[in-house]
């Protein structure tokens, strides 16, 4: 089976998100977006994997997050697995 893995990585709450703050300030400066409370900037990765089942794919994706893709000290992740064929 072929799967698409969507990984969203964001800074943990409590870690200063300088990009998010800058984007928030820009939007506020443009006017008309007074409703905006906060922007948080993260990272989005799409991985294509070929494996026998969804569980295997999830284990592999979590391994890749632990080994390289995510720094647990400052970041958190969410993983979504989609079957493509």
């Amino acid at each position, binding site marked *: 089976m072929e799967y698409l893995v969507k990984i969203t990585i964001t800074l943990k709450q409590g*870690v*200063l998100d*300088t*990009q998010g703050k800058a984007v928030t300030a820009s939007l506020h400066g443009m006017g008309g977006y007074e409703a905006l409370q906060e922007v948080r900037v993260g990272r989005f990765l799409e991985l294509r994997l070929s494996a026998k089942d969804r569980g295997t794919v999830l284990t592999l994706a979590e391994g890749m997050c632990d*080994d*390289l*893709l995510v*720094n647990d*000290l*400052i970041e958190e992740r969410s993983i979504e697995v989609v079957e493509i064929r």
Partner: protein
Amino acid sequence: MKVAVITFPGSNCDDDVVHAVTAVLECDVAKIWHLDSLGERKDLIVLPGGFSYGDYLRSGAMAARSPIMKEVREHVRKGGLLLGICNGFQVLTEAGLLPGVLLANRRPGFICRPCTIRVERTDTPFTGAFTEGQVVNFPIAHSEGRYYLPSSDLDVIESEGRVLFRYCSFSGTTGDEFNPNGAAHHIAGLLSKERNILGLMPHPERTSEAILGCDDGALFWKSIRSWVERR
């Protein structure tokens, strides 16, 4: 003294380190590509500044997983000296050889300017030629230099005396106004527990010769040589 400087794709301060160490210590410095082997035993390995792997994913993340890092770990396990400057410091934290992480500067943007830092202790392989509390000028050039570690862990590294350099004023005072990037506890340089690994955001190789207007960095390299020769 045997020195090696490792070049990763995107390193750009490797030649500066080779030049500075060669000029100050008049010793041979090997420049080693990250896919090659370290070769004969070295006294000091330097991970230089730059933008390894284009700073993709996170600064230093992919260089930290480069094949040569296995040999680098073996080198430090045997007590060899390891120095990471700027991007090299980021590689050290990503490799788990030093705790913490270097985040985007408090005020976003690249800072490139002279910088004063205070030598916190002199009983280390890297600072024997300085005096305690001495203020030196090592320039900074980074956009991600804000040292971060959860506060309970900061207490641990402080109690272990592992902060070797702090950002400060010309007279040696620390304070937010003298901290260029918002680093926790004004940390500019951090030692490993065994004190043979140093991560440093400022660049000693850029102030190693009087012709550059300041040669404070020369004392840094001489400290290392003295320590190696005494072993």
